[in-house]
């Protein structure tokens, strides 16, 4: 019983949140990694693109909700997702045409593109706040829980609850599907391979008859899909607030880099490394130990390695340690 309680507590406070957060980061990192791999720069506008995608989806979701359309237990937002993706795709492709293409044609140094993306970030930042405002928006509906803590306690008779939110399960499942799809696409399809070829050697791709503009467009389309899905899932799970999406940028980059920039598998792994290091290192073991140890030994302090103040710092230290032993990231950060 005590052991069960300990396991449940750990699952509830470490495992499940870590999985969900990890998947969210992974989805974001995938997009970052893809742009890095194929278009050769780190896209600082990524967080705000996620916000944009989520925003469009939210607006459509509200429309559906107002007209009474819903998905039952699943969030209506899923129904609105294709619209969000389409809107984001439109925005990204337009941005590319208006902004990035020029620099590609000029053969500008990639770092210029990075800074350009910073400019785009500022602009998208403005647009999103302009349309939906800086406030928190709630758009989740459907069943919030698959298992709620209270029900679990009643059902199992344990002291500890176990909660699994619909959004958490959705996030993990989606992440798995998306990654599998992306892999299949890049390694097995003609278009996917042409994207890798372009990523490897632009000139030679051109000389092989691959149309660079098409590759670029495809990339943005995929990125639109990835960012919107990531943005919406994150919004469903936590809440939508433009500023948070900007803040997400940092852990997302950390995830992409620790996994090995440019490598999709790495993005996934990186997401989990970052998420779990944040959750575990600062976890206070008092409760778990309290269940496991006999009463006499029960800890009086929190048994916490470091206070949560340093949560962020800790995840970076972990990151540095990983890089110490695997300097190119967990998976060789080379190309898509």
């Amino acid at each position, binding site marked *: 019983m005590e052991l069960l309680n300990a396991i449940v507590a750990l699952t509830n406070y470490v495992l499940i949140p870590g999985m969900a957060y990890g998947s969210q980061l992974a989805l974001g990192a995938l997009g970052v990694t893809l742009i*890095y*791999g194929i278009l*050769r*720069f*780190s896209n600082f506008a990524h967080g705000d693109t996620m916000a944009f995608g989520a925003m469009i989806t939210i607006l459509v979701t509200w429309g559906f909700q107002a007209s009474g359309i819903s998905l039952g237990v699943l969030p209506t937002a899923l129904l609105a997702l294709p619209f969000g993706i389409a809107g984001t795709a439109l925005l990204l492709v337009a941005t590319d045409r208006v902004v990035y293409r020029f620099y*590609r*044609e*000029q*053969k500008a*140094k*990639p*770092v210029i*593109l*990075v800074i350009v993306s910073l400019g785009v970030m500022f602009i998208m930042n403005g647009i999103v706040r302009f349309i939906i405002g800086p406030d928190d928006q709630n758009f989740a509906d459907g069943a919030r829980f698959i298992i709620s803590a209270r029900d679990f306690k009643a059902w199992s008779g344990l002291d500890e609850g176990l909660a699994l939110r619909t959004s958490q399960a959705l996030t993990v499942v989606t992440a798995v599907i998306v990654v599998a799809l992306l892999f299949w696409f890049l390694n097995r399809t*003609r278009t996917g*391979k*042409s994207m*890798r*070829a372009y*990523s*490897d*050697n*632009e*000139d*030679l*791709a*051109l*000389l*092989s*008859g*691959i*149309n*660079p503009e098409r590759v670029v467009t495809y990339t943005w389309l995929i990125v639109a899909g990835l960012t919107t899905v990531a943005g919406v899932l994150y919004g469903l799970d936590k809440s939508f607030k433009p500023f948070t999406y900007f803040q997400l940028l940092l852990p997302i980059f950390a995830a992409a*880099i620790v996994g090995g*920039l*440019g490598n999709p598998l790495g993005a996934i792994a990186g997401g989990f490394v970052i998420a779990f290091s944040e959750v575990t290192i600062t976890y206070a073991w008092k409760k778990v130990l309290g269940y496991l140890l006999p009463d006499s030994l029960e800890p009086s302090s929190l048994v916490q390695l470091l206070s949560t103040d340093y949560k962020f710092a800790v995840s970076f230290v972990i990151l540095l340690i990983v890089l110490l032993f695997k300097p190119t990231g967990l998976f060789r950060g*080379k*190309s898509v």
Partner: protein
Amino acid sequence: MSNPYHDDRGNKDASITRRGGAGEIPYRKGGPAVKSEAKSAFLIGETMTGGYGKGPDILHDCTIAVDPGEIAVIVGPNGAGKSTAMKAVFGMLDLRGGHVLLDGEDISALTPQDRVAKGMGFVPQTNNIFTSMSVEENLEMGAFIRRDDFRDTMAQVYDLFPILKEKRLQAAGELSGGQRQQVAVGRALMTKPKVLMLDEPTAGVSPIVMDELFDRIIEVSRTGIPILMVEQNARQALEIADKGYVLVQGRNAHTGTGKDLLADDEVRRSFLGG
């Protein structure tokens, strides 16, 4: 330049931007191909004048032509503009004078991609493979514009370069210099091009491979594909050449059959190393 040996080259911006592979082919707006009445060779760059970007002219009234069944070889000192002439023919730089004709069409306005679609194949001097992709994928990419079944072509390429079959699944970037060269030529052959352009295909390959490469090049040309190539192994190249061009400072200095040039004392002395 992504090459396994040089992985660490310039740490620059490697963590926010990816280096390597970034193109040098300048962007240009394409135009249509126009029928041309001019009666001339199958592929000809006629009186080409031009240079890089806004820089000075590198080529001056340079003419290069090749016909089906022919091998045309360009030789000349380093920096003469041989590679530049090839790039000009392939539309990788803006001509300030002259034009390029292919099969009775003026293709001067076409972009490089369009020229690939018209059946031109090109192996650049450097950066001529996809380093992160497997050898097989490199060949597949060579056949990118082909919609038909290209397995037999691939088998032919493997026949020609058996080592490639062996390393089929290895990343091309992990091959040695000579092996990479073989991949590059193989990739170009995969297009089944109407005309093949090679920039120093034998640089750095071992004698045995070089012989085979030359043999294969002759074979390819016998199938009726015109071949235009730049060579520094000029004597071997001129031996198999139907036509030879000696370029000096972007101008045609000598033109003739391969044999003629080999026999020409001045050419031998100044360009072929005696």
